[in-house]
């Protein structure tokens, strides 16, 4: 009975501490894990020849992590992890525009937009001062994936929250999407969109 209890306690200890012990990469370089908070957001800004629009996903509704480390040759900073955003969560502050964006992004066939993080150009210092970093991501919209270089600003506040702001201009046509046009082409949506996201994260110690 005592033996069983000890084993159970040990198993419980290892399974519990397994989540908080420092994670190591394959070559022994410690990895940092960041948990994405639910107050993270993404906005897509664009324009037509009659107005500008800003469509927002105001709150990230999943629990995901990003992992920061170095590659095997210790030459490249690897930022890995994927965020999945439901197209139905977009709000353009105008019901018609919202419906139009969802239709244009082919929500019925591809209900999710994915951003897969790939790399950073340097290891972030993480201070209260915004640090400019660039990195590569893979964005998947309407079933088409493309690699993009993204400009980030990264900060860490006194509450140890990490804020990662990313911005990148993309085109509808990058994803084989056709920007909508109305009234025989008299009202046209411009091909270019600006994607901005803010990830609020906590480091797993």
């Amino acid at each position, binding site marked *: 009975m005592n033996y069983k209890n000890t084993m159970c306690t040990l198993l419980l200890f290892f399974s519990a501490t397994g989540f908080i012990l420092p994670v190591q990469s394959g070559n022994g370089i410690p990895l940092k894990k960041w948990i994405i908070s639910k107050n993270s957001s993404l906005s897509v800004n664009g324009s*037509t*020849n*009659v*107005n500008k*629009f800003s469509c927002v996903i105001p709150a990230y509704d999943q629990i995901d992590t990003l992992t920061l480390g170095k590659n095997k040759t210790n030459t490249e900073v690897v930022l890995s992890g994927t965020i999945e955003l439901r197209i139905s969560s977009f709000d353009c502050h*105008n*019901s*018609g*525009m919202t*419906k*139009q964006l969802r*239709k*244009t992004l082919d929500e019925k066939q591809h209900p999710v937009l994915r951003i897969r993080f790939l790399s950073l150009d340097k290891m972030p210092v993480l201070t209260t001062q915004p640090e400019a970093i660039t990195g590569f991501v893979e964005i998947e919209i309407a079933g088409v994936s493309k690699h993009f270089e993204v400009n980030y600003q990264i900060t860490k506040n006194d509450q140890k929250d990490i804020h990662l702001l990313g911005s990148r201009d993309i085109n509808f046509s990058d994803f084989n999407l*056709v920007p*909508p*046009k*109305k*009234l*025989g*082409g*008299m*009202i046209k*949506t411009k091909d270019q969109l600006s994607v901005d996201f803010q990830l609020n994260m906590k480091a797993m110690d």
Partner: protein
Amino acid sequence: MKKILISGLIAGCILFVVSYGGLFLGIRFFPGLFVEYNNPLFNSDGSRDILFYMHAFIISFALSWFWDRFKGLIKGPAIMRGLEFGFVYSIIALLPVMWISFSSLDITVLTVTSWFFYGLAQAIIAGLVLAKVNP
């Protein structure tokens, strides 16, 4: 029949220029009035553009036939006949269509009102042309 087709074609050409020219200028100078068209309710893939631009001729030929059939009932100088014809068409055809459109589609009063006045202007212009070409 030939008279109906010729006067319809003339009215169609004039309406084409005035309608789409007016629409182009309206979008350019009053863009805020057209924001509502960014909605899946309106065709966006360009597959019906040709039908959209044919509208001026469709309404012109229809009004040309209507004019030829009932022009005897509209008396007075050409300008007054054209104006009366435009108002008659708007009350008989446009108003009920706008009514059912507003009651069944997710559109604003501003949009449906603009459609009514756009149609009224088209009918008056067509009426003036028809009163001159086919008195």
